[in-house]
């Protein structure tokens, strides 16, 4: 493989000059007919363009009637440019169509032409254009250069969230047979096998047994990794990457040790062996719901009292923000469908709960003890993952999603350093691989999209000797493992928060 050179760090993080068409050729593989049909979409584009054209406009009309977000966001933009320098893909690629407003305009131009009076009467004046095959191809290219990270929505004076528009675009593309291979193939696997990585039940069982042996060898203690245990108190839903990918697996070991130390009985589920939900990435409510339904079924079958979610960014968004809506995991329901599950759950605890909330709660109550020196080889910083930071919460206070993981790190390690203001918390930069873009054919985009985060990491590496970037997202971990070496870092610089917990936790003879 040829050596890949990353884009140069900006001396001062100034706004880049435009490089027109820089990423016009970037696009993911198109989903095959088989993959499309397996999840209920047309296999391919119609032979006749007019048919596709009409279907796109009809679908757009349908979505405008179903989602207030899309309708308001199509109308409200005034082209003020507040978002224009906020996207990591724009910063990394300099392609003007990667400015959030320009990305939205790819769809807004079509919206104006077909759904507004001004666009019907004076298309050129208001930036309206006919839907052509070229426009659709442009959608496929540039809406697959958005990781749905919502950074732009923080700065927009109307809260316009490009992620909502990207999701709508992907939903339209899927509905006319123009899907993206990576996401749609994964959704197929979830339904067929139970998780994104296609790890079948028996293999999962083997993996977990192997982990028990490893931890026993390492610590001398019988830490269990239970699977499908009926009557367990906690059902842990975690991204399938935790079962064998590096460094993910170290966090899984961390969760198991925390459960062991807490004495709370827990289980994984072979049916719902995946926290990730790519239905969100493709903006398809049906898939979002169907994938989440596995969790409801597993919870009902196993009779668990609590549902805890492992380290995964978009999965936590789906769990925290959408599960109560989709499958009734939460509280406050008045309808029989949701009440059935909510009556089973123990409402002394948050439902669902993030593993960091679980661990931090124990730490606060003095239920865990640590040997912090075990992490002394690490000088640690924390990368906020976009979906956790800008689309969910932990704890009781707004912003708990920032404090709780940091509190855990500080409780288990001695050296913690923050990255530069404006690159963390609600203004965090995406890793560059979220939103269904974590695929090899988009590596160039992923490397460029990681630029702002790599700049901020380089700064604290230079000034404080930071050598470990903790994060709580499976996609962030996989993406950084790939791009860190390209920017000259060791791939093991990235790891999970529970990896640090695992290093330091004292298991004793509990």
């Amino acid at each position: 493989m040829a050596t890949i050179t990353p884009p140069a760090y900006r001396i001062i993080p100034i706004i880049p000059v435009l490089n027109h068409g820089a990423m016009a050729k970037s696009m993911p593989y198109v989903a095959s007919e088989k993959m499309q049909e397996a999840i209920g979409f047309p296999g391919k584009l119609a032979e006749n363009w007019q048919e596709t054209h009409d279907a796109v406009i009809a679908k757009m009309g349908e979505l405008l009637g179903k989602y207030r977000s899309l309708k308001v966001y199509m109308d409200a933009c005034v082209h003020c440019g507040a978002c224009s320098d906020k996207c990591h893909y724009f910063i990394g690629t300099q392609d003007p169509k990667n400015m959030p407003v320009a990305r939205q305009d790819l769809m807004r131009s079509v919206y104006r032409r077909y759904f507004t009076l001004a666009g019907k009467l004076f298309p050129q004046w208001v930036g309206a254009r006919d839907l052509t095959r070229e426009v659709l191809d442009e959608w496929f290219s540039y809406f697959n250069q958005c990781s749905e990270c919502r950074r732009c929505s923080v700065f927009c004076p109307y809260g316009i969230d490009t992620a909502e528009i990207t999701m709508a675009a992907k939903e339209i593309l899927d509905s006319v047979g123009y899907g993206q291979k990576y996401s749609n193939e994964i959704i197929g696997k979830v339904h067929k096998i139970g998780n994104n990585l296609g790890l079948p039940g028996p293999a999962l069982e083997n993996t977990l047994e192997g982990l028990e042996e490893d931890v026993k060898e390492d610590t001398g203690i019988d830490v269990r990794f239970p699977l499908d245990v009926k009557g367990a108190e906690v059902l842990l839903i975690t991204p399938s990457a935790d079962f064998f990918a590096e460094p993910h697996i170290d966090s899984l070991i961390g969760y198991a040790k925390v459960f062991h130390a807490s004495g709370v009985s827990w289980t994984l589920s072979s049916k719902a062996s995946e926290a990730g939900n790519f239905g969100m990435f493709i903006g398809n409510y049906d898939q979002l719901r169907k994938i989440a339904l596995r969790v409801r079924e597993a919870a009902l079958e196993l009779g668990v009292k609590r549902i805890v979610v492992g380290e995964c960014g978009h999965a936590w968004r789906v769990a925290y923000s959408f599960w109560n809506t989709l499958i009734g995991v939460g509280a406050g329901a008045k309808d029989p469908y949701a009440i059935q599950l909510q009556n089973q759950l123990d409402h002394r605890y948050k439902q669902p709960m993030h593993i960091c909330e679980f661990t931090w709660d124990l730490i606060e109550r003095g239920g865990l003890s640590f040997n912090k020196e075990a992490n002394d080889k690490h000088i640690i910083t924390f990368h906020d993952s976009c979906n956790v930071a800008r689309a969910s919460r932990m704890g009781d206070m707004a912003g708990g999603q920032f404090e709780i993981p940091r509190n855990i790190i500080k409780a288990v390690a001695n050296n913690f350093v923050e990255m530069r203001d404006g690159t963390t918390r609600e203004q965090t930069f995406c890793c560059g691989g979220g939103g269904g873009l974590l695929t090899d054919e988009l590596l160039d985009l992923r490397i460029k999209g990681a630029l702002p985060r790599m700049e901020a990491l380089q700064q604290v590496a230079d000034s404080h000797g930071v050598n470990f970037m903790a994060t709580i997202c499976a996609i962030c971990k996989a993406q950084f493992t790939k791009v860190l070496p390209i920017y000259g870092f060791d791939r093991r610089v990235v790891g999970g928060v529970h990896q640090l917990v695992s290093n330091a936790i004292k298991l004793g003879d509990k």
Partner: protein
Amino acid sequence: MNALITLLFTFAILAFVLGFGYRIYDYARTPAPLLIPTTPAPTSRVGMLLRMLREVTLFESLFKANLWTWAASWAFHVSLALVLIRHLRYFTEPVWFWVVLAQPFGLYAGLLMVAGLAALWARRIFVERIRYISTPSDHLMLALLLSIASSGLFIKFLFNTDIIGVKRFCLGILHFDFQALPGDGLLYLHLSLVALLLLIFPFSKLLHAPGIFFSPSRNQVDNPREKRHLSAWAAKLEK
């Protein structure tokens, strides 16, 4: 000419009220199936209302995004509000006391409004990436607002008109008791442009004004674990 401008104004106000009303109805009836506030978000309704209040009065998000854009745009909007308040004296009899108090502020605001608009236009012309995203209508909108503001200032400072007559005309429209407008070219221009602005309001990006109140990322409360949020069409999937 008089009848023409009366007709134009009546039509423009009607189009504005109906168009604007329809938009609000349309936004309100469209469901928001998922909770998507941009977090960290308020966890109570009161907190959400305060967030919205900060957003529409202080332009909080824009302040975080870009100080220059914020300064120009905030100056323009606040000035516009003061100028509108000043103009209430043409539509109230007797003039409300707070409108009387606001008169001098409204006057200076007129000048600040022009400065703000000019700064916003300069960005569209000189900043490469803002130029890239600007459509002809973005420029025309600024041109329209600038023309309205400057024609108003010209009338005030250089070519005074019969404002008593103007007031009679305005009250006349409100009460469908149509009165003649003083014959003054600059005044005709000023009012025709205002009528034009009212006409295009419900069909243009000026919809950002009602839009912000319906923006789910700003108007939703962060409470998904405590309350079950379900739209009508999504609920049907559970049957």
